[in-house]
């Protein structure tokens, strides 16, 4: 038998990315995410058209919303803060939950495995694709917010949370960094969703379970009596990305967030691997 070139292993990843990003469902999810900054931008524009500020001095709503009318770049931060608790992880939960279970449901999983895709290779490909989706989803929100912000509001130098001024160019750099951190914040949910996906052969059940877990964790994270558990919830440090807008940057919680995501990825990634490589594929 011919020795396969090592690079051919990426043929499956290429195919997987093409397949995922050509699906209507994926495009619809990205479309909804792109619409969020548009809605927020228009709402802020309408509310501040008489010169008042959003949410009064106390500042309700997502972080940074009060600054949008001064500088459109803040719409990027606001939009990410608004979508990170629910919309983004829900979209990731749908894609991750469907990754294996959806193929099992359609029966295509057995044909991929007899091709033979290799169970470990297939799982790694699926996880990589979900991570790429995390990044794509975050960048779609950020890019949409950047454009809408620039169209509806003034742009220019901006003031950090700490009160220092940075240039618009540096602000753009921070925005990109924040988008990357937000994408990395979804890595834990992605691993969790993939694990759930190896447990069932119903794509819908896996998606619903993942999104259900997401909501449950968010609720538990709000219950003061569970204080001791909070640092272990994958969503606990999510909003720490705002610390990137301090001068100097306050790294403490950012690092904790990334560490926690890595832990979730390791634990649930291993669990998914252990499950998937020993599972009977009968569908």
């Amino acid at each position, binding site marked *: 038998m011919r020795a396969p070139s090592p690079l051919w292993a990426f043929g499956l990843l290429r195919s997987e990315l093409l397949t995922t990003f050509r699906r209507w469902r994926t495009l619809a999810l990205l479309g909804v995410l792109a619409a969020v900054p548009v809605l927020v931008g228009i709402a802020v524009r309408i509310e501040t058209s008489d010169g008042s500020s959003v949410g009064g001095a106390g500042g309700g709503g997502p972080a940074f919303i009060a600054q949008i009318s001064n500088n459109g770049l803040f719409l990027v931060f606001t939009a990410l803060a608004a979508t990170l608790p629910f919309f983004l992880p829900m979209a990731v939960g749908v894609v991750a939950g469907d990754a294996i279970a959806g193929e099992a449901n359609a029966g295509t999983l*057995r044909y991929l495995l007899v091709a033979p895709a290799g169970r470990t290779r297939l799982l790694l490909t699926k996880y990589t694709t979900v991570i790429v989706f995390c990044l794509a989803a975050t960048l779609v929100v950020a890019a949409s917010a950047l454009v809408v912000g620039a169209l509806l509001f003034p742009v220019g130098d901006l003031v950090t949370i700490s009160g220092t001024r940075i240039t618009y160019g540096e602000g753009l750099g921070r925005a990109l960094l924040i988008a990357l951190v937000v994408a990395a914040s979804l890595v834990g949910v992605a691993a969790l969703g993939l694990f759930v996906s190896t447990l069932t052969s119903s794509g819908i059940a896996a998606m619903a379970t993942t999104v259900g877990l997401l909501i449950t964790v968010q609720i538990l994270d709000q219950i003061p009596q569970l204080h001791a558990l909070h640092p272990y919830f994958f969503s606990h440090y999510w909003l720490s990305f705002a610390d990137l807008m301090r001068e100097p940057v306050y790294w403490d919680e950012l690092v904790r967030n990334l560490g926690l995501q890595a832990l979730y990825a390791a634990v649930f990634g291993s669990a998914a691997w252990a499950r998937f490589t020993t599972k*009977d594929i009968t569908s």
Partner: protein
Amino acid sequence: MAEASATEPESRDRGSADRGSTDLGSADRGSADRETAGRQTAGPEAANPEGAGPETAGRERADDAVIATRALTKRYRGGQLAVDGLDLTVPAGSVFGFLGPNGSGKTTTIRMLMGLIEPTSGSARVLGRPMPGAARTVLPGVGALIEGPALYGFLSGRDNLLRYDAADPAADPRTRRARVSAALDRVGLVAAAGKKARAYSLGMKQRLGLAAALLQPRRLLVLDEPTNGLDPQGMREIRALVRELASDGTTVFLSSHLLDEIEQVCTHAAVMARGRLITQGAVADLSAGARGRLVVTTPDPADAARVLKEQGAGDVVAVEDRVTAEPPDHDLAEVNAALVAAGVRVRGFGLERASLEDAFVALTGEGFDVAG
């Protein structure tokens, strides 16, 4: 067979129109294999010691058998014993019919052979290597259609094949498009290749599934009920395709509950019932197991029955103008002469070949019903 047809001008000739020149070739192969494959399970067990034993002892066997299982058993979670101590030997170059009623464990066996499920006990070797252990090296040489086709409805037929081909790390991406086009052509789907698979009819899906199994030259083709959902024309095409592949040297393992289908294309067959193997061997041997019957058509059935008994025929049954019997051992020409001499007006005289269905019923002692 040649002898029988010389004396049975009027006998039913199942599917003779279907037996093309390729069939002659496969018949040759079949008789050659018969010597090595043997009937029943004695052969493989004796010659194929499993496990840590030296390869050399089983070398000849392993090279010869494309599929060899030993005491292969699967109990599903939930307790259903689906396959029970299966010893199966599929000789290289054969068209092997895997026959059994619904729920007899055919698909379960195929899943184990393809490494989709883990056997509860026992072992399986495919292309000479253990499964599921050697899946990575074995499966690129195997094309499979398991429990019907499964497709990505949102992709076109062509894109479905491109995806399945990309999943095979042994498939050369440089020749991918050409191989996909060739496979589409082979199953007659070129015109519908650009259509979304969601919009395919059942038969079109089945063809696309077959195309996926034919993306590369294979040493073994495993087809689980490949003619499901096909129209008669489609069935004929599949049979022609199977013969063509077999004449190229591909071993074809074909599961079915359609006895006709197995009889028409297979050189070898195995029969399953309730998870157990009932028999395996060359098709000719299997149907020979249930011997053909002598059939006399005559307006004098009572006389004919009496003469046949005198001539030593057993189990004589007369129904209207047809008298059937187990043929006696001596020359049938003498039997015919005796009938004529006794004044019986013989309108038809011949041997009716036993069908695989007769063989099946004789073997299982039951009809072709679903086991509980």
